């Protein structure tokens, strides 16, 4: 996902938030992973907004996408220029209303924003894991979140909300822990990566691994594979946009020049935009984390894992109510993929709503300000709160 964080147009914010940490899988325990490897100890960074009610029935878990972090809303410091990545959605009176709900967001395992990942120090060796970090899956991300939720003494989640790779985690949660989850809102997501999505991820990974500084993943004491990671990000950004959004945003407009200059610089605006995105990304993200998380997304296949190939069977244990949202111009996870999951949910008699939002901004539309998405989420959460009698509205 892209960075769209900016000042909130509505002017309200959840205020100052704190980055918190939860440590688990301390020796002799370890977190068992789907690859059959294990890891420990594990740290998970998280953020909470709002107040947990006495019945602990107003919990919403926000699941971030590929390059996100636990900082979903508010500011760490009054001097911060930017709020958390989903500040437009999470806050007082917003789509996910922190006056009503207790909202949690945790950084995924494998990432580089406070949770244990390849750039963390392996206590056994005293150096960074690098590529000795075990392979992780969407299921492993969910297991780490489950450990955090258990630690917070929460045994029921009112709603799981996530877009893209966050949506995959939401679906995985519903299948793994059907009795804990009252509802879920998977946004712009899929139940399995298509060949197209895997292909783009593989080109991005190859860009990182072809960077001479990558050094088989052991670069933390020297130069980093910045060029490779920037190119990987540029590829990602193409998939987050759409033909239409690129045409409207850039067309063939030139960057800071009136005519073609016949050189290999960024002559077109779209080139300059992608380079800018790539350069911004290397300041905050770890190349190895990018490799591991994109692999986890590629491995994701609910039907294969839980239904012997049948998506209907995969959802058969689910009990949650669903709101599935897709975007007309999303070519990374097109609407037909959302419709497939809706169909499987219907065949299981699940209570599912589906809306395809007409938006020209491609996959990233879920991160942009939209009254339509705000209203959908507000209405859906209100109905789930009412149905379960869990939150006084």
């Amino acid at each position, binding site marked *: 996902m892209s960075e769209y964080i900016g000042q909130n147009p509505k002017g309200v914010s959840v205020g100052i938030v704190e980055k918190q940490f939860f440590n688990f899988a301390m020796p002799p325990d370890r977190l068992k992973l789907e690859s059959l490897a294990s890891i420990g100890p594990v740290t998970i960074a998280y953020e909470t907004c709002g107040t947990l009610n006495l019945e602990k029935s107003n919990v919403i878990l926000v699941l971030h996408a590929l390059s996100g972090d636990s900082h979903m809303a508010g500011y760490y410091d009054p001097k911060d220029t930017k709020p958390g990545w989903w500040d437009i959605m999470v806050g007082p009176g917003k789509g996910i209303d922190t006056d009503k709900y207790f909202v949690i967001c945790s950084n995924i395992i494998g990432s580089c924003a406070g949770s244990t990942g390849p750039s963390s120090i392996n206590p056994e060796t005293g150096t960074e894991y690098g590529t000795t970090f075990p392979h992780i899956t969407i299921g492993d991300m969910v297991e780490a979140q489950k450990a955090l939720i258990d630690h917070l003494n929460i045994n029921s989640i009112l709603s799981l909300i996530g877009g893209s790779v966050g949506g995959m985690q939401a679906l995985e949660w519903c299948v793994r822990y059907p009795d804990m989850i009252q509802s879920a809102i998977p946004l712009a997501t899929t139940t399995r990566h298509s060949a197209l999505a895997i292909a783009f991820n593989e080109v991005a990974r190859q860009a990182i691994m072809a960077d001479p500084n990558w050094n088989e993943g052991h670069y933390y004491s020297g130069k980093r594979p910045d060029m490779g990671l920037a190119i990987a990000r540029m590829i990602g950004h193409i998939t987050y946009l759409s033909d239409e959004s690129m045409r409207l945003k850039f067309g063939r407009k030139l960057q800071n020049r009136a005519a073609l200059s016949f050189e290999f610089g960024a002559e077109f605006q779209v080139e300059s935009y992608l380079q800018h995105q790539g350069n911004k990304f290397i300041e905050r993200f770890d190349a190895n984390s990018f490799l591991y998380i994109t692999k986890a997304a590629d491995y994701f296949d609910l039907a294969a894992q839980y239904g012997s190939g049948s998506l209907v069977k995969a959802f058969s244990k689910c009990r949650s109510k669903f709101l599935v949202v897709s975007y007309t111009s999303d070519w990374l996870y097109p609407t037909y993929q959302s419709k497939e999951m809706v169909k499987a949910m219907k065949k299981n008699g699940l209570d599912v709503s589906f809306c395809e939002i007409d938006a020209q901004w491609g996959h990233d539309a879920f991160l942009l300000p939209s009254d339509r998405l705000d209203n959908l989420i507000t209405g859906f959460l209100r109905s789930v709160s*009412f149905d379960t009698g869990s939150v006084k*509205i």
Partner: protein
Amino acid sequence: MCPLIPDPLRYDLKIIASWIAPESKVLGLGCGEGDLLFWLKKEKNVQERGIEIEESKVIKCIEKGISVLQGDINEEMEDYPDNAFDYAICSQTLQQVYQPSKLIHSMMRVAKMGVVSFPNFGHIKVRMQLAFTGCAPVTRELPYSWHNTPNIRVLSLNDFERFSDQVGFKILKKAAIKTKTTNRQGKMVNFLPNLFATYGIFLIGKE
């Protein structure tokens, strides 16, 4: 959802609502902004599902807390098992579908009973307009011109009764009604319904 209180229903929807048993499972086909389903959920505690093709209306439904799928009614009905619902309601949509018999068959497959309502093309105003102006009728109930109307399958109350024999379903209940301008109020028409009713509402079942 206490702050949301259903608006008073349109007269035709009130009649449909009165036929629906409490606690039942209801599928609304082309459910629009979900007024009827919302009322039934609040007042009769039904389990509701809607199908609506227009995004803006789908959003209105979800804002109300109605479960709704954005899509084509024929396609979306296919995924439901037989008798998944007690009622499938097709309110003022039959006259707009390309294959009405296919729609009725699907309704009778996914639900135990169906409710169908439509504007009556046998109404006296329709007949008079065609007879005296020689032009395709444009009425309050069917307000479009021939070239821009979505109502491609106009029918009368008598047509529907004949249709039941041809397609093979039973008419369990019927109401011929005449509504006032606001559509909030109306009355039953007992005398020559096919001539004086503006709308027909039918509860149908399997043969």
